[in-house]
């Protein structure tokens, strides 16, 4: 276990050391102390190491993560795990805006609440939220799964493409072209699997599914209102 004190050595030093690790490194367990809301912690990782951040992370923690596991024992700021490609990112507390933004793969777990725009522009990542998500979540979400154990704020899934949204609690309002869809046993099984992978509790049968109505896929004068 290697401990890095951000207050002492800084974010650049941490990222530099993590980036320079060879693929076959033995140094797979890292602990980061005194983050105090610093930005870009453990971003751009490329190998399957584990980084635990003891405290609060600022913006873009674990940005563009590949293969690695990053855990935040605190809250995370804007853009947590933005553009994640693979691997797993977990925050024990809350995540601020744009969590998982444009994520392509891997798993993002937010045990607390996510705020606005959770999963915005997601492109294949799986996001599982133990609490609630804020307004405009899954905006223009293209692919992947968003599972919300709590409630969803206004305009969920606005301009949605093919991402799948599952919400256990209430949805304040649905965005343009986002509609409720049937939950079949296939979907219930999927939610079960995602909750299990995330290690979060929820009754898959109580979740409701939301997806794209696909009316905005091609420009059409009859849908001019929606633009």
């Amino acid at each position, binding site marked *: 276990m290697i401990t890095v004190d951000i207050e002492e050595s800084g*974010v*650049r030093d941490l*990222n*530099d050391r993590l*980036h320079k690790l060879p693929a076959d490194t033995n140094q797979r367990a890292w602990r980061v102390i005194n983050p105090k809301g610093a*930005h*870009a912690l453990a*971003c*751009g990782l*490329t190998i399957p190491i584990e980084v635990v951040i003891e405290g609060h992370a*600022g*913006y*873009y923690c674990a*940005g*563009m993560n*590949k293969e690695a596991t990053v855990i935040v024992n605190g809250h995370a700021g*804007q*853009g947590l795990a*933005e*553009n994640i*490609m693979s691997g797993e990112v977990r925050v024990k507390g809350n995540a601020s*805006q*744009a969590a998982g*933004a*444009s994520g*392509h793969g891997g798993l993002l777990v937010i045990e607390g609440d996510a705020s606005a*725009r959770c999963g*915005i*522009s997601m*492109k*294949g990542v799986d996001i599982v939220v133990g609490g609630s998500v804020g307004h405009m979540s899954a*905006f*223009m979400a*293209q*692919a992947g799964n968003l599972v919300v154990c709590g409630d969803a704020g206004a305009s969920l899934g606005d*301009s949605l*493409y*093919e991402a799948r949204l599952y919400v256990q609690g209430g949805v304040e309002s649905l965005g343009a072209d986002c509609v409720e869809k049937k939950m079949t046993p296939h979907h219930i099984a999927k939610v079960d699997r995602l909750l299990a992978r995330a290690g979060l509790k929820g009754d898959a049968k109580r979740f409701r599914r939301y997806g794209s109505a696909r009316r*905005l*896929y*091609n*420009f*059409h*004068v009859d849908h*001019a209102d929606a633009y």
Partner: protein
Amino acid sequence: MSVDPRGLRPSYSFPQHVLAEIHRAADQGLYEIRGYGAKRHLPTFDDLVFLGASVSRYPLEGYREKCGTDVTIGTRFAKKPIHLKIPITIAGMSFGALGANAKEALGRAATAMGTSTTTGDGGMTEEERRSSKTLVYQVLPSRYGMNPDDLRRADAIEVVVGQGAKPGGGGMLLGMKITERVAKMRTLPVGIDQRSACRHPDWTGPDDLTIKIQEIREITDWEKPIYVKVGATRTRYDVALAVKAGADAVVVDGMQGGTAATQDVFIEHAGIPTLPAVRLAVEALQELDMHRKVQLIVSGGIRSGADVAKALALGADAVSIGVAAMVALGCNRPMFIEDYHALGTEPGFCHHCHTGKCPVGVTTQVPELQSRLKPEQGARWLKNYLTVMTLEAQTLARACGKSHVHNLEPDDLVALTVEAAAMAKVPLAGTDWIPGQKSGY
């Protein structure tokens, strides 16, 4: 009974193309989308001329006496700044908007000339990374195809806030061009009309842009220059904010800048011309004492070595070409005329990039049409054009007594019109009058 042509009086407010557009709008009920940049009449670099050598200034001999053209981009923070042999780069154009052959041709020509190409709103293709020795990777609001591995194998990164054709608008690619390959790269269903976001998903505003740029630097270990690209609007503020946000270079794209698909109203009625934008950008840099420390790349209607020289004289470090590069690759060339007609246009008037049926194989995904542009041929055309532009710029620079194109200065220029004088802050020829400025030094 024949019509007396003398009685046919066109309306200035409702000329033919406006009449046609109203008829089309009535038929279709949706705004017109097209490619290319602003076609309207604008003050451009044509309205500025150089004061060549005379008794008071002495010229350099062409060919024999060196006139340097090299430029380094990214000296502010990057460990590995980019060295370009010529001050002309290829602007961001997406694979999707352009076909693979076109992208490859651009890469080969740029490599041969020692300059860079730029990816676009769709990500990096293998063809372009292979063929282009110096590749700038765009980070756009859509984040289509965004990939840290591509970020790491790029030579520079360009955070796109906007482009001149549609400052404040997002990308657009119509269904016909969303082929299997394009769809896969962008994680979209095949055949949809792609609408991109106009704002970035994970930051809004210069304070958050600062933090985003830091993240990109961290991911790339501070090696690569980071550019910030804006469409020209409130250029002075935008450039100042880009500098404050930590950019290594700023790219300013005037309203003449091209697009593969945008609403016509956006292209024609938003943004300011490149002519005032250059001056505003340079003033912002000078005010912050960052001129030449944060490099300025200017685009939007650069057509010849004269435009290059004028942009540099006004203070730019380099220029970027988009439409002009496509024209070099064959855009609007008089060949395959029947296919132009099938689109309802003629060579010289075509702006139908958005249809995906480019008659010369540049802005198309259709294999038969793409095959009309052979990468080697396209590369040779573009290399020749870039060579000509460079020679032209050197000719003008030498005539002004400069041993390097960067030594061109605003005082080498005068304006032919009042608007150009006011916009470029260059005196009207034969006077020392710059509208809006007190005379004197």
